[in-house]
């Protein structure tokens, strides 16, 4: 999956891919202050299973946990399941439904689910649908943190660690053969990283077409820009 980080305090974005085997679960957010945890499970295209380098991977399942509320939300490309204590409610992506309680709300509207907790912490999960009988591609999910300033700066995870300001500088801009892919050097966390200017799509507002976001692409699974290495974020289960 692609990660896009709109860096706090900068009008610029960093992006990276995490390439792992389908089935791998990644920790996206763990916030010890709010008790929120978000994990994502990777799925891969159905073709070229033997050649993992060429295989595109996506988020196929997202698990959102709010420990103080004893609430778990499991989002797959098929359905959305709310585990509220021992009780369980299941919705399909075809539902247009708003679920409200004093502590949280969930709004499902065909291709997007927005979940809000307490004072403004809001996540959005988007369903990207492909042609049902496509022999390679599968439906996949996009996960967005809206109002990330409401999350605590003590957060961890592939996304969570960026809820605090990150200082970086880009220099040595070097237009390569493709003018849209400028190469440069990023100075971040005492590392000098070779980065490439690229574009990713933000689907928060337009689920079908997305909006282009320019970002500095960090190679090798975000190595250098993320704390530790990507395998540090692999967890055993969605919950």
């Amino acid at each position, binding site marked *: 999956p692609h990660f896009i980080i709109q860096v706090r305090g900068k009008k610029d974005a960093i992006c990276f891919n995490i390439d792992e085997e389908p089935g791998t679960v990644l920790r996206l957010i763990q916030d010890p202050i709010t008790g929120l945890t978000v994990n994502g499970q990777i799925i891969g295209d159905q073709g070229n299973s033997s050649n993992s380098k060429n295989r595109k991977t996506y988020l196929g399942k997202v698990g959102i946990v709010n420990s103080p509320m004893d609430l778990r939300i499991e989002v797959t490309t098929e359905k959305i399941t709310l585990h509220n204590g021992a009780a369980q409610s*299941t919705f399909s992506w075809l539902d*247009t439904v708003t679920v409200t309680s004093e502590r949280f709300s969930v709004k499902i509207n065909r291709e997007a689910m927005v979940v809000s907790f307490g004072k403004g912490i809001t996540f959005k999960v988007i369903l990207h649908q492909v042609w049902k009988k496509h022999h390679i591609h599968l439906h996949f999910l996009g996960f967005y943190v809206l109002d990330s300033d409401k999350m605590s700066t003590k957060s961890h995870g592939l996304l969570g660690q960026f809820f605090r300001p990150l200082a970086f500088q880009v220099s040595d801009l070097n237009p390569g053969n493709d003018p849209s892919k400028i190469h440069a050097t990023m100075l971040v966390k005492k590392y000098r990283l070779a980065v490439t200017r690229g574009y990713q799509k933000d689907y928060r507002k337009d689920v079908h077409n997305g909006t282009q976001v320019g970002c500095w692409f960090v190679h090798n699974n975000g190595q250098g820009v993320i704390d530790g290495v990507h395998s540090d974020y692999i967890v055993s289960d969605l919950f």
Partner: protein
Amino acid sequence: VLDEKADDIEVYSTKVSCKVTSRFAHNVVTTRAVNRADAAKEVSFDVELPKTAFITNFTLTIDGVTYPGNVKEKEVAKKQYEKAVSQGKTAGLVKASGRKLEKFTVSVNVAAGSKVTFELTYEELLKRNKGKYEMYLKVQPKQLVKDFEIEVDIFEPQGISMLDAQASFITNDLLGSALSKSFSGKKGHVSFKPSLDQQRSCPTCGDTLLNGDFIITYDVNRESPANVQIVNGYFVHFFAPQGLPVVPKNVVFVIDISGSMYGRKIEQTRDALLKILEDIKEEDYLNFILFDSDVTTWKDTLVQATPENIQEAREFVKNIRDRGMTNINDGLLTGISMLNKAREEHTVPERSTSIVIMLTDGDANVGESRPAKIQENVLSAIGGRFPLYNLGFGNNLNYNFLESLALENDGFARRIYEDSDANLQLQGFYEEVANPLLTSVEVEYPENAILDLTRNTYQHFYDGSEIVVAGRLVDEDMNNFKADVKGHGALTDLTFTEEVDLKEMEKALQEQDYIFGSYIERLWAYLTIEQLLDKRKNAHGSEKENLTAQALDLSLKYHFVTPLTSMVVTKPEDSDNQMAIADKPGEASYQPPSSPYYYVDGD
């Protein structure tokens, strides 16, 4: 082989054609016979149809001349009928028959060598119960029929998820091969065409083994919780969400233990309650209120259905004994007050729902015994906070009172028939209301966009059921239609929104023309009449007159034989017109079935 034309009347064709579109069933029963005798003979035609159905048409055709049935206001029909009665030329055509059915019977004299065709049409909205729609046909030809067939075509825009057909008389492979059932996508088909040999009760017999119930069950896909269909300016909105947790219940059983419950009734009540106790979930709260001349409670307050309490309840139920008279008023008020108190004192979960289930076999005859006063007391005590369900056991009771009482408190009444399966009937009823998924359900449409809406608020949505709302669009040319369904779930409040693009729907619905185009309008009319008749049961004065006028108007407009209308059938008897009349018998006019109740013979 016995002569299958023993009576010289040969029924050579019987066809039952059912077309179901979006739960609305349009059934036509056609029988053709010929009189092979040298003299005129009487030919009779009997059809048993569901009580929930409305007859819409009947025609009698003799030697190419058709005599249609005319739906008229009951009073007008009665005048004609009375005139005919005085001449000794009439017959009532419909009477109650058993639990679920009404029997339509007509007979006519047919000249030697003449042919006669009977065609009866009736319509009904199939209701979803325990996760499926059920269509019930009684099959009982009086003789072997050369061309016998039942053809059922189902069209459901949501897609059919399961379809089954069972007949109580199909016990061997031979007859089983006459039955075919299939479904794919939006269409389902059931066909039953037994040959003459397959119909014989034994290879050398001349009598038929086709005798019993033919039941078709099906359900639709539920990818989305709701489905709206709009045709010719009328809409229907089906709502049945899946996958929601069950709302905990606070249930009070108010049980009549008066002397008339002596014997099997009290035994069956005990059996049913013991079974129901097995099904009660631990998060539920319950209590038993027993009434005879006095009122006895199991516990002073509602208690949670913990394993210990359930064990204790079982012991209590096992010791229920009949005695005394019938004090319905105090029994009900005790139960209602207990539920109200539990809510006020927060001794039951905040997000829970309350239900009163009363079982009685007779009229109130001690304490406050005036039905109107009991209704007033109960209505005021419940105050619209929860539903009351009344189960009427046996025949010696004022069922109209029980029905009115339940209807005005958002519940319904059900008869429990005094048969060997009475305990299963009780348990079955409990299963229907055991799993509320939503409470205080309200279906909302854009203001000023709709007219003539059927009921759109419900105390409960139960798992396995379906809420159906129909209405008319103010502007047929509108592009979008939006509906919100709001309800309280076990843990959260939910709002389901359904948006329909009318242009897209028009395209999608074009393919279903093969069934019948005006089905939504008729479905709306059926539902409206049904609900007006229910409301009318508790209305008085000008309100009642108003409701009656509306229901009558619709019954006449759509040719439905309802309790307000009659169908007059003019028969060509000896060139001197005779009349027969088809009325809808109400529950109040229930006649205990003769033994066995399924005995049918017009002769």
